[in-house]
């Protein structure tokens, strides 16, 4: 329902072929300096909100609500985190964090298994409805999740799975599955069948050849795809808002929104601490895999 497509940013280190056409001349040098200065400004614009979130989260709320703005946490404190994490209020943080973690991990593991099986089917076998299946996967990604909330809510309600881990997990599996299949399909395609055939000549069974030869080569692909599934499920907001509205069954995004509405604009320091806690796992994971991830969908555009 959302297609997270990522170009590889290792491109940054690739030799830019345009560079060659750009060298030389004093005017050029001035332009380069101007561009460099501009890039620092842009860097600040992109980073500032992230910095501001962390900065605010380490300040006492009195400083945050003072007449002066503190650009550094002069009166550094961890109180906000303490309050947020151990707040005994109506919507506690820890159960929400636990729910998020359980739902996300279950989603990633099950979706990876299902997607792996399906991607093997479409890359290693020829069968009648193969093309129809791939087309379905592509089209499903384009259906807006917003349009589906009502009927998904009723289906899950019908199964008595509202406000359960199982209900939300199965919805998330369906949400990340199309993207996961599509991406894994690319990775499996990257391993030549000839390798398996060689192993079979050496006496492996067909399944054994796949398991011993191809599967180990797929590990990086599985990890990258899994992390992207993790980010998608961890950040998901609308479905969780509708399906798991009961305080003890909330996930982190819904908890954060509830915390925001309950505190209004009176406790920005606490809200920023909550936001930081939610954002950090995503940012860390994202930075780890971004270079790994090859563009499943966009790659097509540059070919030929």
């Amino acid at each position, binding site marked *: 329902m959302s297609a997270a497509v990522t170009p590889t940013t290792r491109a940054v280190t690739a030799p830019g072929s345009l560079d060659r056409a750009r060298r030389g001349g004093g005017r050029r040098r001035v332009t380069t300096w101007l561009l460099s200065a501009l890039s620092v400004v842009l860097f600040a614009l992109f980073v500032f*909100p992230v910095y501001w*979130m962390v900065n605010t989260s380490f300040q006492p709320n009195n400083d945050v609500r003072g007449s002066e703005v503190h650009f550094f946490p002069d009166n550094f404190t961890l109180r906000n985190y303490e309050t947020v994490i151990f707040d005994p209020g109506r919507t506690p943080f820890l159960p929400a964090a636990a729910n998020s973690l359980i739902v996300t991990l279950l989603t990633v593991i099950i979706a990876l298994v299902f997607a792996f099986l399906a991607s093997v089917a479409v890359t290693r076998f020829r069968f009648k409805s193969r093309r129809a299946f791939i087309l379905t996967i592509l089209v499903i990604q384009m259906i807006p999740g917003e349009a589906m909330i009502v009927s998904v809510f009723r289906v899950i309600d019908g199964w008595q799975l509202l406000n359960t881990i199982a209900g939300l997990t199965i919805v998330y599996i369906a949400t990340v599955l199309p993207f996961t299949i599509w991406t894994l399909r690319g990775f499996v395609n990257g391993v030549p069948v000839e390798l398996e055939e060689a192993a079979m000549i050496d006496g492996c069974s067909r399944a054994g050849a796949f398991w011993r030869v191809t599967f180990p080569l797929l590990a990086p692909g599985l990890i990258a795809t899994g992390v992207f599934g993790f980010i998608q499920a961890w950040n998901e907001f609308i479905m969780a808002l509708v399906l798991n509205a009961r305080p003890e069954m909330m996930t982190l995004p819904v908890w954060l929104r509830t915390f925001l509405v309950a505190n209004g604009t009176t406790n920005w320091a606490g809200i920023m601490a909550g936001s930081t806690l939610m954002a950090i796992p995503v940012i860390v994971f994202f930075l780890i895999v971004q270079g790994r991830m090859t563009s499943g969908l*966009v790659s097509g555009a*540059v070919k030929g």
Partner: protein
Amino acid sequence: MTTVDQDLEPAAPSAVEGERLTAPSGGKPQRRGRRAAGFTPYALITPAIIVLAAIVGWPLVQLIITSFQEFGRAQVFGAPPSWVWFDNYIDVFTDPVFYGVLGRTLLFAGACVAVTMVLSTLIALMLVRLPKGFRMLLTVGMLLAWAMPALTATIVWGWMFDTAYGVINYALVNWFGLAEFDQHQWLINPLSFFMVAGIIVVWGAVPFAAFTLYAGLTQVPGEVLEAAQLDGAGGFARFRLIIFPYLKPIFMIVTMLQVIWDLKVFTQIFALQDIGGIRAQTNTLGVYIYQTSIAGGDFGHGGAIAVITAVLLMAISIYYIRQVLKEEEL
């Protein structure tokens, strides 16, 4: 046949990449080696099919059925729904509120896509010319913005635009001497609400678009550009006549994705309304579906609006899907 990943990761350490070198022609050998087996592939896709049928297929059918029914709170609690056929659609299409929401969504998405694409193209061109250190710096900055979850990004920007203690009002008053921004309420006026929402959306969307366009730019052959320069082509002429034609396919795909994502924007608008917007004046299609059906309990009309939204987005996606199918040689 070259793909982005192969060209951009010349020294990728992963085993998969290494193996690719032994079979550089990609698809064709696989096709030859693909086995014609009877039962196995169907067994392999069964788990995926079951989940997708249950959570996407069946709800989709239900959504369409509901959109032809009168389905309110009474029906949720067990009363049988009655068929009203196209009444829900007629109601929606004769409701000025719907046109307000639709117009707002189209304008907002259009503005966001335009600004995102112009900025991303400029940043991509800039990345090509930057010295390596500065390029790394900007890359890291954009990665951070890209990694930020939409919900937390919205809340942080909402805090920066806060009326009483926000850093933006503070800077405007104290640094630029604009006293009228003291206690300025950014989110009350719908136009300025959408300006703030637009900033959040564009801030989050530019990194992806800029990186993708930059990846495309690195494929433009330097020789052609040099030749053009020798023939006297200026910077803009080189962009218009050489770089853009090379970039066009990738530019189109990124634009399509932005259109699709911005038309169904939900989190940013919804969370910003929580912080201080007036819901009735700032709903977009995604939020309006939620308000009508979940908050308002009118599943019939909500269903009709959802079907209209889905059809609109699918129609826009057709171009994109066709493009992908064509390039992937399935």
